[in-house]
């Protein structure tokens, strides 16, 4: 399969681009932040996503979705990134859908996701840096389990209808076997959510589980074999976050290149200075390479091939390229780039959050090294 978008994918890209730029531009995010909105995203907008069919991109046609792939989901996420649109799309329509697909939970949750009513959060992180280890305990109790422990960095959990939580049912914290994935009602007794506003104005919760009782039907897949659905979830979420990073970096680069063409100093546009031209051209190159890495990972996932390493390359590379894009963005804007009134700073904040999500560049570079045996 050629490594570029098909005509159908380009059509979807145009639809998503027009829709998101019109309904959720950066000013939308700014307004939510300024209002200190407690949800952190617009439920009306989530409904509109659903009306366009976007929330069902990864849901199989048999379940009422569009039955499309990660390339298509990524096109939506890239536009979300470009516009810094607050949306539960990544956690709900990508991560959760991939984890629940083909399980008993699909029938319960896919209709709500398709309708733009249900929001799902993911709680995988237990430490400030993602390590993949799972220590939160789930002990058998009657017909179910009792969960005790803590999670953090769970976006949208405070506003979610369902939280997917990794827990340890056997073995040690770093073992891949013995993990069980649970689908949990956020209102469960003993579960305390502490929503925190992050640097980019998104809201992520710390979650404390104090003997939270769940039935055995809360298990996603099999007990002790949660690494499978978790791996599907993480591959999809990482690839999606990479696509969103492409949008953030691409948006920052476009703003910056436009500014270079407008801003005058010494009687000329600053974009005529070779020092800035070379930096902009270098940035363009990094972003292009990152874009190829993301499309490669998406295509491999969609073809059902082993994509683990390609996904790590995509997440690590978009982290590198977009970090450069937002840094050059502020520097080339000069003083105005430091003001809250101007949008470029928002791109830097969002990039930092996405770079950290589901493992940062170093985490994924290390994963590649381990896979290569060093």
């Amino acid at each position, binding site marked *: 399969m050629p490594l570029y978008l098909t005509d159908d994918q380009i059509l979807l890209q145009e639809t998503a681009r027009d829709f998101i730029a019109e309904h959720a531009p950066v000013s939308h995010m700014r307004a939510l932040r300024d209002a200190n909105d407690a949800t952190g995203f617009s439920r009306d907008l989530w409904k509109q996503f659903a009306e366009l069919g976007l929330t069902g991109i990864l849901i199989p046609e048999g379940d009422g979705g569009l039955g499309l792939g990660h390339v298509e989901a990524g096109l939506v996420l890239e536009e979300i990134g470009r516009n810094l649109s607050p949306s539960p799309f990544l956690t709900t329509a990508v991560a959760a859908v991939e984890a629940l697909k083909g399980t008993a939970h699909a029938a319960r949750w896919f209709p709500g996701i398709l309708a733009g009513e249900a929001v799902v959060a993911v709680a995988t992180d237990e430490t400030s840096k993602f390590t993949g280890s799972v220590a939160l305990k789930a002990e058998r109790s009657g017909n179910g389990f009792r969960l005790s422990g803590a999670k953090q960095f769970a976006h949208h959990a405070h506003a979610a209808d369902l939280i997917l939580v990794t827990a340890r049912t056997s073995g040690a914290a770093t073992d891949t076997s013995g993990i069980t994935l649970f689908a949990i009602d956020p209102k469960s007794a003993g579960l305390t959510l502490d929503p925190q506003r992050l640097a980019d104005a998104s809201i992520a919760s710390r979650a404390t589980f104090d003997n939270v009782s769940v039935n055995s039907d809360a298990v996603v897949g099999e007990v002790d074999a949660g690494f499978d659905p978790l791996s599907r979830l993480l591959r999809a979420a990482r690839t999606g976050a990479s696509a969103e990073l492409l949008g953030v970096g691409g948006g920052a680069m476009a703003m910056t290149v436009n500014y270079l063409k407008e801003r005058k100093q010494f009687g*000329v546009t600053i974009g005529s200075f070779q020092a800035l031209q070379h930096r902009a*051209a270098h940035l363009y*190159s990094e972003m292009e390479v*990152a874009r190829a890495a993301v499309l*490669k990972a998406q295509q491999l996932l969609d073809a059902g091939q082993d994509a683990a390493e390609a996904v790590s390359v995509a997440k690590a590379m978009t982290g590198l390229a977009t970090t450069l894009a937002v840094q050059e963005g502020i520097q080339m804007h000069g003083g105005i780039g430091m003001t809250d009134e101007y949008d470029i700073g928002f791109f830097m904040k969002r990039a930092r959050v996405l770079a950290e999500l589901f493992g940062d560049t170093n985490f994924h570079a290390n994963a*590649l090294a381990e896979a290569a045996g060093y």
Partner: protein
Amino acid sequence: MTDPLTQFRLETRAWLEENCPPSMRTPTRGEKDAIWGGRNPVYAHPDQKVWMDRMGARGWTVPDWPRAYGGGGLSPAETKILREEMAALKCRNPLNSFGISMLGPALLKYGTQEQKLEHLPRIARGEIRWCQGYSEPNAGSDLAGLQTSAEDAGDHFVVNGQKVWTSYADQADWIFCLVRTDKSSKQGGISFLLFDMASEGVSTKPILLISGYSPFCETFFDNVKVPKANLLGELNKGWDVAKYLLGHEREMISGMGLGSAGADPLIEVARTGVDPILRAQIALFDVRSRAFAAMSERFIDELKAGRAHPAQPSMMKYYGTELNKARHELVMAAGGSDALEWESEASGGGAKPRAWLRTKANSIEGGTSEIQLNIIAKRILELPS
């Protein structure tokens, strides 16, 4: 039922397994393992000739050229499959050739039917080795400032002047050469000539480089007669041909960033765990290297489909060469003092340090990194002059 592409893949795999000698499926160790062909070929191993001839006879040294010109006549999808199957079997490149990577595309676009029939099949079979006469002592980055002249002498031109950094001029059979045919216009006074290096008045002098090798030459022209039929493209329109060809040259050089064999010594050292900081540097390098491999695949696919930005080869050249330099810096750091031995058997005759030094030219030859960044800034980002 098997679809035609799957069928092609199976047949290609079977043919390669039968026809690619086992010795041609081992990693190359330096320049002597490269197959260049030509009138006076040098083979380090007889299998090199076998492999080149078999691939050449099938047109697979240039799989996507038309069959009429010695190519394989393969579609972009089939060409990609052939490349993938060759990579899977670790087949060596059957023919390194500036005729294939540089002149061929320009001949296909600008050549007359006679020129195509005369030159392309010989390139495809590795019978004629070409060199490139572009740079001059006073025309480097400012290539259009070149002064080598071609005077009109009725049925032929008379060429006088000097080229420099002519890769393998001393081993080449023919040269494609930029000459000045009009002094009143800079870009508009350049023409593109093809001529035999055995012509009277042509001489070459290898230049000793920091690697201890002499792949580049000074090339002198003293009243060299070139038939007018050897003009490629129109008179004084050679700059268009030159730029078109440079795009393909940059594509070729960018491929150096892909060298997979180069990664292996890195990984071997990283595995020893002696230097955790180097391990981290290698891992981060690996991220960019693998992302660039995807970029190369994307670029070729877009190019074949006519979707690539015309200036995208500049990005590929810039990124690929900088990456290759970074790779060899890591190879040297990983190699420690072993990698410094200049002539020993253990160091393969100094393969590592010499290759490391050779890569420093990657970001100079074919247009410096800075020239590529200028092109990206102006033609892709449309930043003002």
